[in-house]
């Protein structure tokens, strides 16, 4: 057969396969067309200034947050807005629109006095803060140490390391403690206000685990293996469910 004919034939077969893959016109796209009983919550990424000049700052890899949110919506009916929002700590009214805030970067930082005051107020009102140390080719605990020190200074009490049998590691998926992607493996740490967990901190770059899971799903080469990436997503879901319902 002539080569050009073969080329045309291949293109035609690929186009046909693509057409078949399009959802049927009688079906609705996605699984989000059911009535949601609970109102949606919004994902907030904390915006803050770094002390070090590092490539991975407060807004590193927003697409991995979105991938995680997408998974959360796909695997549960938790109603979460599929957008990523930046949240400055200088404005308590803005912060109060988010029941939980996420904070990550690779590098140390320090809050201003106003930011400390707002964060304390936010957490005492009932908000939840999750911090995760992002690691980029170094010993990878600068963010962890800075975060822990800042939080302990704000509240005048130490964060506590959670044992592997804590509810946060088992409320949805069973995990043997905080998953570890890279950096330092200090596990998961928490600060409680009364009986309520107000802050949770991980050192093992779970956020990049979400990014890795996204890469695996789209068929690209990933930073971590499938098992670790999956555990990172599961840990995220555990954190969300635990903080919502405990």
């Amino acid at each position, binding site marked *: 057969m002539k080569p050009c004919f073969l080329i045309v034939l291949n293109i035609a077969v690929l186009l046909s396969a693509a057409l078949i893959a399009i959802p049927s016109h009688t079906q609705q796209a996605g699984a989000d067309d059911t009535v949601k009983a609970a109102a949606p919550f919004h994902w907030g990424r904390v915006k803050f200034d770094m002390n070090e000049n590092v490539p991975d700052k407060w807004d590193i890899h927003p697409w991995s947050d979105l991938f995680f949110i997408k998974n959360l919506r796909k695997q*549960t009916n938790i109603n979460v807005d599929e957008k990523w929002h930046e949240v400055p700590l200088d404005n308590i009214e803005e912060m109060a629109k988010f029941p939980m805030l996420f904070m990550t970067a690779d590098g140390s930082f320090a809050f201003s006095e106003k930011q400390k005051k707002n964060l304390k107020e936010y957490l005492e009102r009932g908000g939840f803060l999750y911090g995760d140390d992002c690691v980029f080719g170094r010993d990878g605990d600068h963010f962890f140490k800075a975060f822990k020190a800042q939080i302990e200074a704000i509240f005048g009490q130490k964060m506590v390391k959670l044992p592997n049998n804590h509810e946060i590691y088992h409320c949805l998926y069973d995990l043997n403690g905080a998953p570890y992607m890279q950096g330092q493996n200090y596990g998961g740490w928490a600060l409680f206000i009364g009986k309520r967990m107000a802050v949770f901190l991980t050192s093992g770059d779970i956020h990049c685990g979400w990014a890795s899971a996204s890469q695996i799903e789209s068929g690209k080469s990933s930073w971590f293996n499938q098992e670790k990436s999956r555990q990172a997503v599961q840990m995220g879901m555990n954190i969300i469910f635990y903080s919502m319902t405990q």
Partner: protein
Amino acid sequence: MFSETIIWNFPGGWHGIISLSLILLILIALSYKFSLKKIPFIPAVILALFRISMLFLIIYCICGPSMQRESRTVKTKRPVTAIVFDESASMSMEDAKGKTRLEESVRNFNSKIAPLLKEHDLKFYAFSSNLRKLKSPEELLKPRREENKSTALYKNMAEWIPQFNQEGISGVICFSDGIDTSGWTFKQLTDSLAGENLTHIFAPAVSKLKSAESFEFERIESPSSVSADSLLQVTALARYSGMNPGDTIDVKLRAGLDVLYSGTFKVGSGNSKALNIEIPLKEAGLKNLELTAESSGRKLSSNSWSVSVLQKNKASALLYLGSADWGARFLKSAFDNSERTSLTIRFAQDILGYQTGAPVKIKDKTISAADLANSDLLILMSMRRHQFTPQMEKNLRDYVNNGGSILFMIANSEAAAEYSGTPVEKFLPVYFESIASKEKFDDKTQNFLKSMERYRANIQTGLNKYKKDSMDVPPLIKFKLPDGNQESDIFSYAFKDGKVQENSLPSFEDFALINREKPGAKILALNSEFTGDKGQRILLATQQFGKGRAALLATDSLWRWKLSSPSQSKDFDKFWESLILHLSSGKIHAPYWKLSSMVVQAGAALPIRLVIPQGQYKIEELQTVIFKGFDAEQVKLKENPDSPGEYSSTFTPAPSSRYTLKAFKGTECVAETSFSSSGAAPQKELSILKPDIPALQRLANLSGGAVLTQDSDKSIFERITPERKTEIVKREERPLWNNAWIFFAIFGLFSAELIIRRLYRLL
């Protein structure tokens, strides 16, 4: 009348078919243009046409076309109306002219009402103590009935409404003088109907008969045990006759020398008055209560009984989550900060929905019978209709009937509308609004519904996923307290110097539309910004249901209010603590006696019940005794098979006596109550003869009906004439593709192509 439509399905729709057809046509053309062996033009075209035809037939089959035929037929139906006559003693007494009210009623029916009901199918009934069927109203005229038959109007209505609904009866015309001597109250009727309804038109029998002066508390409903620091609710039914309209009756409720309640009412045109008394009881112990009625210094009636006030532990609430909701976090925190309330959280099994993914370990956290038994209040939050099974509905009704209270929270008009007309709505104090057609609402409400629908549905598409600027969340809306109900203990925290501090009232993001409250429900909070046909929209309502309470909060869990308020503000915590304490006072965690009334008729068999909450004592461990003065008689109780934990017997009291019921474990008294009996049973039917028109009016209002008067127009009967036409829609679907000729055609075309190919040595 019918219509036919062809439906089909292909990936990508029309675009998919056209694209595939073009690709196939190009492929076929190219295959013949570039074929290694050349054949003449015409056979090549024929081959191409065969190939094209065959492929189009295959595409046709893939589309799966089918013919859908929809036919509609309209059926008309004659309405069925029940005609009910009161044949009690008061209806059978002769007036000065020798005629009875019953004869007057039958005459009125035959001459004035029957001609207006020619298009109705009629069923005839009569009642006094019980309801019976009649062939025709003339049966009532001869022979004359006995004169001392009592009237159980409310009790019979509670029975005939569900029965008539089941039989397809569309309305009732009832001939009665409105006198009820059974002791049932209007509230008992509404509680037992629990939302079921049927339009009633009352034709009052009003001929004048003379009755003697009398006054008594015919019925006093009061729990025999309550928790300390809660409200004691007493409902008393006063029955009187022969008194002058405008006479003032002074009612007092005393505990020893302390007057706990003092009120007055004027004798009106009716012959009964229901009194609802709420008094706070703070200290534990046995309270001997006396209810008296006086007029112009003259004592008319006095009845006494006792109430055990029990020391209460923390009010325990059980939060049952239907969907994952941030409210649970904030509620838990509020309860953790409270010394008087505690919260346990449980999840519905499908709390995370049915999507694939999360291996749900929620089965460890579903609700158990022990959870329910140990809880004073069950909070149902963010639940969808499909999450209620029939068994759950039954368990909830039993839970409330046994003193448990329910708080149903729903903040979403779409989800709330699913409950309209369901068994769940029956034990709630409101009716939900249907939102199928939003055009009936005002513009503000329509806009709100549409915007919240979009907000909840989270339809987020497009490229702007990394939204860096501030986003819009719905503004918070404030509660408003109804006029005249400013002193509710739930909102006492928001009052300062007798004035409500508006800033302290709760705020919410989303709310469910309520159509109206049910008769007997109490509205505790309104929407400050949105109105319906009856004024501001209801947000919080409660109603007594059996021994417990049902409450509805038509908003979210108010967590955004908490997160928006300064951390020093305790308003959120105080609101929830007050609400939980208010709702949870019904459940008693110790054995208690249950009597239908604290005034009992001498000579009548009185049902007495001892309720032993789960986990308390076994009946075999207890000795149950009834005392009259120093005389004691053992009471043998049997378990009620329909109500586990409830043990009952009957007792016939002597006239004008005081009795005390006690249950002992060893020498310890674990449950106690006392009550008194009336004097010799009067000829009640003959002593209260004045028609009770206000009572008939209340009954008519309950059902959206009316009381006939001299000026009534015949259009009044349209209220019991429902829409008689019903439309039946029948749909049939017939596939068009799975015909034998299509397969033969495909086979034939393929065979013809092979033959021609062979002829031209292409094979």
